[in-house]
């Protein structure tokens, strides 16, 4: 068990972070290279002003017509994404690991809040799962990969929660937690979780086209 722990928290963690950062860079650079090679015209339409106008509308809950049409989904998706990103970065036990290995540390969130945020992520995943299963317009376009990426995202939070409470199999869940976190990191650049990388670009492009050429709102 100890050697397995050392493996997942050592070499595997290194690999996961390298693949995550390397993969993200690779995906972004290769898409920009593709733009450069085949659709250079896109640059000439990009506008900072209209890109941000569009992005700002879409990253504020209820600032767009479609967010307002789906109030529950809007609340869930915003809560989910905020907690998903904030929780692992500002969790005290993660910061301690950084401190032990690299001697760097930063401000952390109280554990009780992190617990709530973890439950929000897990609950949101359940919401998304149910929505996929019962909403016809979502079910129709759902494939196995959609469930897999949902599971990849939910896993580190579920296992983390189990490990934190140390109910049973503490070591087992800790290892599983680290491993599932690594799987998620690796999956981000190479699955449709890459919407994390690309959505600012697609949004900015549509915003620029709507603002600069179409003189219309895109929200």
């Amino acid at each position, binding site marked *: 068990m100890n050697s397995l722990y050392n493996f997942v928290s050592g070499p595997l963690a290194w690999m996961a972070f390298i693949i995550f950062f390397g993969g993200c860079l690779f995906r972004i650079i290769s*898409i*920009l290279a*593709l*733009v450069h*090679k*085949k*659709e250079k*015209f*896109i640059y*000439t*339409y990009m506008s900072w002003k209209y890109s941000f106008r*569009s992005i700002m509308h*879409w990253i504020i809950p209820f600032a*767009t*017509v*479609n967010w307002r*049409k*789906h109030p529950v*989904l809007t609340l869930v998706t915003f809560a989910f994404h905020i907690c998903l990103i904030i929780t692992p970065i500002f969790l005290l036990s993660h910061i301690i690991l950084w401190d032990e290995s690299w001697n760097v540390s930063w401000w952390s969130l109280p554990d009780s809040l992190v617990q709530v945020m973890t439950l929000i992520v897990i609950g949101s995943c359940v919401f998304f799962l149910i929505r996929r299963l019962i*909403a*016809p*317009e*979502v*079910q*129709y*376009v*759902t*494939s*196995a990969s*959609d*469930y897999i990426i949902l599971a990849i995202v939910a896993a580190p939070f579920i296992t983390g929660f189990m490990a934190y409470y140390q109910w049973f199999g503490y070591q087992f869940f800790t290892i599983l937690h680290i491993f599932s976190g690594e799987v998620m990191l690796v999956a981000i650049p190479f699955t*449709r979780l*890459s*919407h994390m990388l*690309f*959505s600012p*670009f*697609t*949004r900015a*492009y*549509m*915003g620029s086209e*709507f603002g600069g*050429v*179409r*003189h*219309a*709102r*895109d*929200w």
Partner: protein
Amino acid sequence: MAEPAKKVEEKKVIDEGLEKGTDRLTPDRIEKVIKQVLEGESGARLKAYVDTCIHCGLCSEACHYYLSHDNDPRWSPVGKVKQTLWEMLKKKGRVSADFIRTTAEIASTECNLCKRCAMYCPFGIDIAYLMLIVRRICHRLGVTPLYIQDTAHSHSVTMNQMWVKGDEWPDTLQWQEEEAQAEIPTLRIPLEKEGADIMYSVIGPGPKFQAQLIYQAAVIMNIAGLDWTMPATPGWDNSDMAMFTGDNEIMGRIKRTHFETAARLKVKRIVMGECGHAFRSIQDVGNRWLGWRMPPIPIAHAIEFYYELLKEGKIRVAKKYAETVTFQDPCNVVRGAGLHEKARDVVNQICENFIEMHPNREHNYCCCAGGGVINCGPPYKLKRMKSNRIKAEQLFAVKSRGAKTLIAPCHNCHSGLEDINHHYELGMDIKFLGDILYEVMEKPES
């Protein structure tokens, strides 16, 4: 994983363009063309859109097809991408001839490319662009609905959409000039006047079926005292069905001819009639194909043009139109060019009472005729009617609040709404802005 929803059409449409085209396909040719378009012609946008889509279904409610078919997901924007593009990508182009036939029908007759869904996707994924890629594949495979393909052939041969032959065009203009001279004896339709301020251009169906619109435009131009001209040569037609069949090469030829005609006449700008798709073609799509970021010559759509004429006092209103009116925001000049406020200004200046339909402006529902769908012809008319029940409901609601006249400043909207008006027996009076402007403007001796 998910069950495909049932197909709701009662019977399969017979379309010779699709049947004959499908018969000629071989698996190798299908695979080759799909690869050429998806890997050769397309680039970062396709890749980013496909990789970013999280399959959330949030685009569904943007689509009038989806809303009109009781929220059946097979009609949602992403549902249509799933049935066509995803399948081609998943099978790496190894799809059957029957699949291409169905795909061609979906892409050509079940999406108006209105881009309302682009405003509903949180990531701004341009599904209309994806549908155009699918149409491009079908075009290159020779599987395009017969009626719209005929208009593309006409463009290719005559540079206009309606097989109007060389001499028929100036003949029509002279005929309308003579007709209008009965009303205003000094009226002229100046042909080939070099250095005029304005080249007025119309769509192919203008001289073919709607010559009175040329008459009205001539009256407006003459009374406003403008320095204008119309070309006597090919290049007079600003319409562009090749843009909608995926025939980009012909699209480029049509636009080049149009711009070059304006350049030859050394006009300061092109003013065009109340057409939405032609405006999209000239100021957004065709110019890009030719390498112009924005159009090489300034373009004004009729809405902007009327707005200017009224603002500058070149046209004065004698007596406002009395009936209560409502206004259809066409996708290509509103979501496509932001002319909605100017249009409302014009409407308020020429009409006594104006009430909004809901939703409106950028969020208005599509007419279900644009994007080449009405041009696919009679085989698909019933589908077009059933697929826009939501528009009938929207119009019925505004009619019940008192609107009698529906202003539709776009040829496709106008024709499509006329069909809906009949099919759903709404009993509205549908007009162009120009119809009303012509009716209410101050004319000499009137």
